């Protein structure tokens, strides 16, 4: 019974999930307090009517910080994905379509990049470049771009041989038209699934790196960084530990769920 | 005294009947051919006999009696004991008759172990004998993986496995459809020899009339889940009564009668 409900309403489900992300990005407009406003008189207050989530060790309203942090964390992740797609998709399509030596060399380079786990690449790069969100973005883009080029390329390669493409060529469609009308839908489908699944991973990456001290620097509200700076106060103010963590978990969960639903709809293997 | 009696059997698929009014009687040592186009329900009928129906299908009406045992209410365990020992199967897809990454000998050994408590050497002897009966080099095949054998060899190996324990009924579901005609002829010869040797009944399923003509004792014609005509080979093939049988016969290319009589 659940299965049936799932399939007929999967589109609505996706809609809701993506709306969730939209909300996260725009929510800070609703923040009751300035997330950066320090108020030493109101430190470490428990959650109450005035401060939904309480305040942190510098008296900043946690609720506002969480909302702002959502924008930072999720916004940055989406930005990273955007850049990766901008680089990866055209490159992959070109490489798959053109083939030949360019393709082979590109693949060798990407194989070399992908040999490193993405976390290690991100951490080392951002380490060498120094802390800061900009460096973090660069580091993650470098870590992730390869897999998209690969995915797009393999989609193009597998579709290129199929008969309907041959038909289009025979019918006189230009290369550009073929790409746009016939290849692009497949590519977009696969890429979309991977991107949604990756969104969760990138969010976790950003949070983890910020927790270690790379990436977001105080006073920027970022969920991982917030967990880092509140660590000494966890014992007395446990909400400082729970709330940012749950925020991260929940957001990643939504993204994983969306990715799963998308994958089921598109029936992409692996 | 019949070995297998199927009486007014009906098989449902998710509440819809897909096989109805099936009546089959086969005696010990008889070659019974079930003929029909694809989708006529022949394989489903065959699966039902051994309790191999998938989860969405079940016997909704009728009886199956095998060797004086009522089959319709047997437990899973009882079916499991029967399969391989009293009722054996040979399938069309010989590639998937064997588990790909286990040696053939080991799979044969496993099967004998499942049904008896013979020693390792006794089991090996039985397996070797069966392989020789199907004209395969026993030692080599016993120690090979499935992908190391050709199609015809693999199909003969699965026949060997099926007859190792002297089953009373061998159900061969389109065993030669996926083979080229020469290999197919060879495989059929092997089956016929086996039948002579151990005197088992054979339920032979095919869509090819020529094969029915050559080997059967009894022929039943199936169409859209029902048996439309049954009779001895001579009756069905030379004096068909049902219009569908006539259709089938007219569609098959035949040699002129004189040549045909010389060959058979």
């Amino acid at each position, binding site marked *: 019974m659940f299965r049936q409900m799932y399939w007929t309403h999967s589109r609505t489900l996706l809609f809701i999930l993506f709306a969730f992300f939209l909300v996260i990005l725009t929510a800070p407009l609703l923040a009751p307090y300035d997330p950066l406003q320090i108020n030493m008189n109101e430190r470490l207050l428990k959650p109450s009517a005035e401060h939904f989530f309480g305040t942190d060790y510098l008296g900043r309203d946690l609720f506002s910080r969480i909302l702002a942090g959502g924008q930072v964390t999720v916004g940055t992740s989406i930005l990273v994905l955007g850049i990766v797609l901008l680089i990866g998709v055209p490159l992959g399509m070109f490489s798959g379509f053109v083939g030949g030596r360019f393709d082979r060399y590109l693949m060798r380079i990407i194989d070399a990049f992908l*040999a490193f786990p993405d976390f290690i690449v991100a951490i080392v790069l951002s*380490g060498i470049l120094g802390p800061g969100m900009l460096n973090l973005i660069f580091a993650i883009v470098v870590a992730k771009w390869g897999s998209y080029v690969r995915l797009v390329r393999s989609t193009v390669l597998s579709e290129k041989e199929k008969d309907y493409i041959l038909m289009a060529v025979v019918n006189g469609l230009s290369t550009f038209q073929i790409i746009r009308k016939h290849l692009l839908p497949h590519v977009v489908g696969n890429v979309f699934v991977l991107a949604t699944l990756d969104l969760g991973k990138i969010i976790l990456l950003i949070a983890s790196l910020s*927790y270690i001290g790379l990436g977001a620097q105080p006073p920027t509200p970022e969920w991982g960084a917030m967990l880092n700076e509140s660590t000494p106060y966890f*014992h007395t103010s446990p909400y400082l530990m729970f709330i940012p963590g749950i925020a991260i978990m929940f957001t990643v969960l939504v993204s994983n769920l969306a990715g799963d639903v998308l994958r089921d709809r598109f029936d992409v293997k692996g | 005294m019949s070995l297998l009696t199927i009486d007014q059997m009906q098989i449902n698929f998710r509440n819809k009947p897909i096989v109805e009014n099936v009546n089959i009687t086969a005696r010990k040592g008889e070659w019974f051919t079930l003929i029909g186009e694809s989708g006529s329900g022949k394989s489903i009928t065959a699966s039902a006999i051994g309790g191999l129906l998938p989860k969405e299908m079940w016997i909704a009406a009728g009886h199956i009696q095998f060797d004086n045992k009522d089959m319709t209410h047997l437990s899973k365990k009882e079916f499991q004991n029967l399969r391989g020992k009293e009722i054996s199967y040979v399938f069309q897809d010989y590639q998937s008759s*064997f588990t790909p990454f286990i040696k053939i000998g080991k799979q044969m050994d496993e099967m004998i172990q499942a049904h008896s408590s013979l020693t390792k050497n006794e089991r090996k002897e039985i397996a070797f004998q069966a392989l020789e009966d199907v004209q395969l080099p026993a030692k080599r095949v016993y120690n090979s*993986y499935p992908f190391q054998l050709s199609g015809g060899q693999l199909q003969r190996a699965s026949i060997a496995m099926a007859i190792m324990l002297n089953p009373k009924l061998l159900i061969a579901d389109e065993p030669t459809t996926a083979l080229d005609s020469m290999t197919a002829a060879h495989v059929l010869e092997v089956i016929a020899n086996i039948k002579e040797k151990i005197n088992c009944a054979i339920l032979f399923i095919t869509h090819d009339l020529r094969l029915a003509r050559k080997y059967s004792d009894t022929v039943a014609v199936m169409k859209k889940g029902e048996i439309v005509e049954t009779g001895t080979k001579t009756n069905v093939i030379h004096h068909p009564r049902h219009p569908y049988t006539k259709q089938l016969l007219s569609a098959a290319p035949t040699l002129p009668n004189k040549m045909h009589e010389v060959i058979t």
Partner: protein
Amino acid sequence: MIQVAKRFIEFIIFLLLLSFISFIFIKLAPGDPVKQMLQVDEVSVTKEQIEALREELKLHEPIYVQYWYWLKRFFEFDLGHSYITKQPVVSELLSRFPATITLTCTSLIVMILISIPLGTLSALYKNKWVDHICRLFALVGSSIPSFWLGLLFIELFAVQLGLLPSMGKGTIQHVILPSLTLGIAMSAVYVRLLRSSLLESLNEDYVKAARARGISEKRIFLFHVFRRSLIPVITIFGMSLGSLISGTVVIEVLFAYPGIGKMVVDAIIRRDYPVIQGYVLFITILIVLINIFVDICCRYLNPEIRLKGVERR
């Protein structure tokens, strides 16, 4: 055997390439390496000392000469000295590596102990409540940040219950919380993988053939289905070692566990480039070796590849 030899040669070429890239990298790193090497506790450094070190490091030589020296030292396992501790990078790595290995192995064990039973149960009881619980676990588990899980564990077990230590190393107790954290976080992914791999195998035709031979369901599952599923799972376990190693970085920092993960993070914060570089080289070589090992295992497990010599890529 030829395959193994080929891989080995590829590996050597890879090492050469790697050494070249990291050499370039170190050259590009900001800051003056000489100054940093000599800087200890704000003691001012004389011009002569700087010049002397430059001579020693041959920094005034043309680039390719410098690379040649670097290459020589690389194959002699001399990766330079830490800017901070002045110890050879290699000895820093080697002294801390066993701790990370311990953590990685115990986490792997935890991961296997969780994901195999859960994945198997999930496949066997497909769509029953057992399956739903396992899949829920998989979904939540792969959404949870590992360091947060660690924080929760610390709060619960170390602080509240005082059962286990929250930092350092030395005894088994020290390894329990970190490996539990890492193991649980990683197993979430594998529960899913195992489940789908098993389900695929259960539907195969040869399973039906085995049933037709009268083999018991239990035996079919253990010997015919499970073993088949093991191959892709082992491949993925092997490839996951990369993630496992990256996972140890965060966990080591969180639990103040003195492995190479913590070492590199400290080095990053203190801009200790030789150590960073040493870590990268070390990890890369490790991962490549692991991949080769996994490859060999898969060849062994899949007789088709072994006997036919098919390239698995």
